[in-house]
C-alpha cells in the first residue's frame, strides 16, 4: 500500500524540483535589453528565412539551389503556414513598406554627398616649476572633422580647429582635402594636409584622444619649426602591389614652408620653388600592428623677415619610423635629420631629433589603464640660423615623459603626465605635471 503513495510523493517531489529549477533558470535569464534585441534580430532572421522559403515554394519549378552546400534550414514550428495568396499579399505589402520607410540592403550604398561630422576636444591642467609660468586650466583645442563622399570616386575631408588664446579664439583650417580615387593603387588629392613626413603627424592629427600621451613629441609639435607640420598642394598615394609586405606610397608637391617657417604657405608660395615629399611605408599582413616607413622632403626656404644678406636655404629632411601599434605593448619610434644649406655662404647645418615611446595596456580592470613613457632628444647646432629664434627655444633638448592613461569610456580618456625637460646644456631643468581629459563626440 505504501508503494503507490511513495511513488506519487516522488513524482510530486520531482515535479516540484523541475519547477523550481525552471523558475530559477527563468529568473536568472531575465532578459536584458541586449538579449531582447538579439531575440528580435533572431526573430527577423527566422521570418526572413520563412518568407524566402515560401517565395521559393510558390514559384513553379523554381527550387532554390544555393551555389554552395548549406546547412538544413530549421523548421519554423512557431509559425502557422499561411496560404500562398496570403503570403504573396504580405510580401508585396512588406516590400512596398520596406521601400518607403525602412532601410534596406540596397540602400546601404553611399548617397552623395553624405556628410559625416565628428568632434574632438580636450580640457587640460598644467603646472610647472619654470620661472614665470602659471599653473591652471586650459581649454585646449576644439576640433571638428568632416568627411563626405561626393561620388563613388571623389571624397572630401576637412578639419577645423578652435584654439583658446589670451584675448580670443583662433580658428584654423587644419586640413581641407578633395581626393579622387582611381583605384587602390592611385589616389590623387589636392588641398592642405598634415605633411606625410613622419608617423605621428599623419596618424593622430588634432585628435588628442587618438594618441596615448597628452602632447605631441617636440620634433613635430604644432607651431614648431623643426619639421613642416602642414603642406599645401597635391598628393598622390596608394598601395604598391607587394603581397604580404603591404607597401604603400605618398608623393606630394606643394608650397612648402612660408616665410615664417612654422607655417605653411597657405596664401601662396614665398618663392618660385615647390616643396616635394615622398614617403614609403610597409604594413606586413603577417604582423598586424607593425609599420615601418621612411620619408624624404625637399624645399627652398626664404625666411621672413629676411636674414642679414638675404640668404635662401635649401632644405632636405630625411626621416624614418618603426611602430608597433598593438597596445600590448605599444612602441613608437621616429628619427629625422633636417639639413639646411645657406645659398650665400654654402654653410651646411644638420639637426637631428628622435623619440621612443613605450606603452602597455594593462590586462586588469577591463583594460582601462595604460601606462607609458617617452624619451625625446633633439640636437640643433648653435649657429643654425633658421631655428635660432626666441619662440623656438630648443638647442639640445633631452626630455622624459611618464604618464598613465585611463579610458573613462570607449570614447573618452583621462591622462596624467609628468615631464622632465632640459632644453640646452646651460638651461635649467624644468619639471611639469599635466592632467588632460580628451574625448571624441
Amino acid at each position, binding site marked *: 500500500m*505504501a*508503494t503507490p503513495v*511513495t511513488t506519487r510523493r*516522488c513524482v510530486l*517531489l*520531482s*515535479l516540484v*524540483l*523541475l519547477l523550481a*529549477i525552471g523558475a530559477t*533558470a527563468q529568473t536568472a535569464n531575465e532578459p536584458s535589453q*541586449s538579449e531582447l*534585441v*538579439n531575440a528580435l*534580430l533572431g526573430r*527577423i*532572421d527566422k521570418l*526572413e*528565412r520563412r518568407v524566402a522559403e515560401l517565395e521559393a515554394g510558390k514559384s513553379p519549378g523554381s527550387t*532554390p*539551389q*544555393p*551555389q*554552395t*552546400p*548549406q*546547412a538544413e*534550414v*530549421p523548421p519554423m514550428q512557431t509559425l502557422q503556414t499561411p496560404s500562398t495568396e496570403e503570403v504573396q499579399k504580405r510580401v508585396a505589402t512588406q516590400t512596398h513598406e520596406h521601400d518607403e520607410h525602412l*532601410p*534596406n*540592403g*540596397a540602400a*546601404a*550604398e*553611399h548617397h552623395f554627398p*553624405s556628410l*559625416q561630422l*565628428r568632434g574632438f576636444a580636450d580640457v587640460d591642467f598644467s603646472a610647472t616649476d619654470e620661472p614665470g609660468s602659471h599653473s591652471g586650466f586650459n581649454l585646449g583645442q576644439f576640433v571638428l*572633422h568632416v*568627411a*563626405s*563622399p561626393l561620388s563613388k570616386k571623389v571624397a572630401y575631408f576637412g578639419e577645423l580647429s578652435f584654439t583658446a588664446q589670451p584675448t580670443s579664439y583662433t580658428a584654423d583650417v587644419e*586640413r581641407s*582635402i578633395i*581626393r579622387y*580615387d*582611381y583605384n*587602390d593603387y592611385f589616389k590623387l588629392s589636392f588641398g592642405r594636409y598634415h605633411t606625410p613626413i613622419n608617423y605621428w603627424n*599623419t*596618424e593622430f592629427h588634432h*585628435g588628442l584622444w*587618438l594618441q596615448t600621451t597628452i602632447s605631441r613629441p617636440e620634433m613635430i609639435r604644432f607651431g614648431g619649426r623643426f619639421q613642416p607640420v602642414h603642406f599645401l598642394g597635391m598628393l598622390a598615394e596608394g*598601395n604598391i602591389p607587394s603581397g604580404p609586405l603591404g607597401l604603400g606610397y605618398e608623393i606630394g608637391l606643394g608650397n612648402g614652408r612660408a616665410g615664417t617657417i612654422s607655417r605653411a604657405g597657405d596664401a601662396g608660395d614665398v618663392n618660385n620653388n615647390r616643396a616635394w615629399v615622398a614617403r614609403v611605408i610597409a604594413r606586413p*599582413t*603577417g604582423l*598586424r600592428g607593425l609599420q615601418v616607413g621612411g620619408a624624404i622632403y625637399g624645399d627652398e626656404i626664404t625666411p621672413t623677415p629676411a636674414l642679414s644678406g638675404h640668404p635662401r636655404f635649401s632644405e632636405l629632411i630625411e626621416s624614418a619610423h618603426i611602430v608597433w601599434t598593438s597596445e600590448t605593448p605599444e612602441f613608437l619610434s621616429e628619427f629625422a635629420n633636417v639639413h639646411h644649406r645657406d645659398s650665400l655662404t654654402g654653410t651646411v647645418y644638420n639637426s637631428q631629433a628622435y623619440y621612443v615611446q613605450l606603452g602597455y595596456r594593462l590586462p586588469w580592470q577591463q583594460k582601462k589603464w595604460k601606462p607609458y613613457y617617452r624619451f625625446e632628444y633633439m640636437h640643433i647646432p648653435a649657429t643654425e640660423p633658421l631655428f635660432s629664434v626666441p619662440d623656438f627655444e630648443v638647442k639640445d633638448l633631452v626630455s622624459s615623459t611618464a604618464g598613465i592613461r585611463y579610458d573613462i569610456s*570607449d*570614447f573618452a580618456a583621462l591622462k596624467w603626465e609628468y615631464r622632465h625637460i632640459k632644453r640646452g646644456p646651460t638651461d635649467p631643468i624644468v619639471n611639469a605635471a599635466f592632467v588632460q581629459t580628451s574625448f*571624441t563626440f
Partner: protein
Amino acid sequence: MRKAATFRAAFAAALALTLVCYSRSAADTTAVQDIAVVVNPNNAVNNLSLSELSKIYRGERQYWRANLPVVVLFRTPGTYEREVVLRTIFQMSEPQYRQYWVSKIMRAEATSPPAELFSSGMIKEGVAAIPGAIGCVRVSDVRPDMKVLRIDGRLPSEPGYRLH
C-alpha cells in the same frame, strides 16, 4: 528499502530529464555555424585569402577593380555573424572596432564605417543590388542570388574553413 529505491529512481529520472532539457536548450542557443562570405553574382572574384578578406573589411582594399568599389555590408551589434567577423577577420572587440573606424576616418582613409544592416535578408538585398557588395551570412541563409567566396580555397562546411 523498496521505498527508498523508488524515490532514488524517480529522483534520478527527474534529474536526467532536467539535464536533457538544459543540454537541448544550450545546444539551440550556442549552435556553431559556418559564416559564408557572399558577393554579387556578377563579381569575378571566386577566392580570397583570409588576409585579403581582412584588408577588405578593414578598408585597406577599397576597390575590386578600377570601376568597382567595395561596399562592405555588416550586421548590427549582437548578431552571430558580427561576432564571428570581429573575432576572425578584424581580431578586435566591439569597442576596438568602433575606435578603429573613428581613427581611420580621421586619417582620411575612409568616409564612413561599413553599413550596418539589421538582418541577413537585408544583406541578401544589398548583395543582389550593389555590384561591389560583400557581406557575411550564416550558411543556412545563403540564397541562390548570392555568390559564395572560397576563403583560403575552402567553402563553408569544408574541413579547415575558419569563419565560424
